[in-house]
């Protein structure tokens, strides 16, 4: 009778024996997650098969160690109820008593059928929410400016200068590199075309107008939006997570005065300077490439630049810098202050901030193009 040659009658996990004509399954070994490991599914299916015999005696006293995973394995094999004949140790009894009380898992929340409309509606309201938020914040900053005019000793000079250094001085290398390369590429592409028509000298006009009026400010603004905008948002977001913002509020120091205003003023000052720098380096790259490519003397290029490009273009470029800088800082602060204290929200807020400020920068460029369409352009004919 013992081990009637069927292969699954014995295994490290159980023994089939017959005691006084009663079929009995004796579980042995360690029913723990670590011990079961890869055997788990196999043991589970075998035990389920045995559990189908209703007259089987289950003897769990031979188990050396059993943890929750092991208990659940046996419990599921039994079909979530105790078998009719069971011998068990008291500590195992406690484990199964827990299992009898386990709550079923709640169903995950199902999506509403109307979800496309709901999402769209939520997006719409969110957009207005952000717009109103940004307008409110800028109003607050404006009030702070009036307050500071009356109380000039409270101007946060240290913060402004720190922001100038971080957003201006530290951005010089990256803007120079990108500007120089763009200048070279632009000059290389257009000088060849002009050379075919013998119009080599016009390269100075093309480079001057496009870089000083458009490309320089836009390159600088997009780079700064990615670089400084994201860091401002993340900084404010982490201050929210660590409750530093709340600490400031409790001390009666308004966020807009101490955190937002210095960033807006700092970037408002730094940005036109970065624009000037980027345009200068890009022009340098362009003139250098023209010299090497079509042999246009760099001294000639430099001396003819003032005639080719009216100085109004430089002012327009720098004006764009001021506006873009302030808008980037404003948007970055707006998104930073709205971050909720969890990691998900931090990432989302930073992404939204950068995407929104780059979009805003391009909008501003378009608005400038329309407003100043009659300024600084020499119309032929």
């Amino acid at each position, binding site marked *: 009778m013992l081990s009637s040659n069927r292969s699954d009658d014995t295994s490290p996990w159980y023994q089939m024996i017959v005691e006084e004509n009663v079929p009995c399954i004796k579980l042995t070994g360690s029913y*723990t*997650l670590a011990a079961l*490991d890869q055997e788990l599914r196999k043991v589970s299916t075998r035990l389920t098969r045995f559990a189908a015999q209703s007259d089987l005696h289950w003897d769990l006293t031979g188990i050396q*160690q059993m943890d929750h995973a092991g208990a659940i394995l046996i419990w*599921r094999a039994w079909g979530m109820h105790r078998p009719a004949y069971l011998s068990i140790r008291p500590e195992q009894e*406690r484990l199964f008593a827990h299992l009898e009380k386990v*709550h079923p*898992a709640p169903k995950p929340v199902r999506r509403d059928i109307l979800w496309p409309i709901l999402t769209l509606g939520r997006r719409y309201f969110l957009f207005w929410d952000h717009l109103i938020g940004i307008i409110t914040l800028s109003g607050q900053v404006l009030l702070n400016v009036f307050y500071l005019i009356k109380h000039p000793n409270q101007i946060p000079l240290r913060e402004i200068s720190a922001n100038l250094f971080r957003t201006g001085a530290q951005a010089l290398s990256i803007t120079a590199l990108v500007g120089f390369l763009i200048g070279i590429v632009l000059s290389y592409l257009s000088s060849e075309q002009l050379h075919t028509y013998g119009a080599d000298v016009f390269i100075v006009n093309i480079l001057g107008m496009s870089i000083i009026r458009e490309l320089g400010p836009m390159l600088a603004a997009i780079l700064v939006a990615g670089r400084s905008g994201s860091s401002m948002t993340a900084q404010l977001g982490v201050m929210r997570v660590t409750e530093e913002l709340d600490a400031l509020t409790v001390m009666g120091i308004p966020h807009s005065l101490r955190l937002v205003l210095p960033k807006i003023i700092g970037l408002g000052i730094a940005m036109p300077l970065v624009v000037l720098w980027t345009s200068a380096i890009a022009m340098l790259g362009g003139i250098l490439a023209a010299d090497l490519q079509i042999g246009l003397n760099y001294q000639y290029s430099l001396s003819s630049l003032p005639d080719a490009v009216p100085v109004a273009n430089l002012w327009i470029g720098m004006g764009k810098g001021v506006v873009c800088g302030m808008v980037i800082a404003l948007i970055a602060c707006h998104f930073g202050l709205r971050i*909720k204290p969890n990691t998900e929200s931090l990432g989302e807020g930073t992404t939204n901030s950068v995407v929104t400020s780059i979009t805003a920068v391009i909008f501003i460029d378009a608005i400038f193009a329309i407003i100043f369409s009659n300024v600084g352009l020499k119309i032929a004919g």
Partner: protein
Amino acid sequence: MSNNDPIIEIEGLYTRFGSHVIHENISLSVYRGEILALVGGSGSGKTTLLRQMLGLETPAQGSVKILGHSRYDCGLELSRSLRNRSGVLFQQGALFSALNVYDNIALPLRELHCLPEEMIRDLVMLKLGMVEVAAEHANKMPAELSGGMIKRVALARALALDPELLFLDEPTAGLDPALSESFVKLIQTLRQELTLTIIMVTHDLDTLAAISTRVAVLADQRLVASGKLADIIKIDHPFIKDFFLGERGRNALRNALTLP
């Protein structure tokens, strides 16, 4: 396995941060089934020692052995299995904020890649029941939970793999007295049901007196004493006197030691 097998063995451990010495020649063994409480003043390096046992930091000198294997130079496989055999409750809970309560607890189970999803579901709900978190909270995100709830969910996650070894970093800090009490009860029940060895860092004398079977005291960069609470308080050392025999300490100890 015999009870005399140390489950954690620290030998001749030195820690330095720059020129600042935190630990000097610390040797400590933890045996199976013990609840060891690490105490010490702030800055005495309790949490650092705990992190070294977890393998999150490496000491300047000395060895840490967990379950008979060195913590620092074991292979990837072994290191993974050691980690699966120990659970950690961090002070702030350290729940993954991108996952809901259910998925937080299910994560270590899913990472084993050998459990069917129905079993994971039962295990998660069992653990949640054990730490007395109602089933309807399973779909909540960590940001929506209160501090006490975060602690309990984090404990459920630490227990997800039925570890032999449980590390608790300030388990009752930030809990109200009633919650601390139920936390202590919970740990006691768990110990009866599972063979658990617990190492905890705590400042809470009530918890310490209620559940620890042994106390190790860190002061002056050294392990100044280790033994049963009743023996520790007889030692004549300024830190021990301040810590245990101040007014608050005496109150807590009176409750724990005179009443059996």
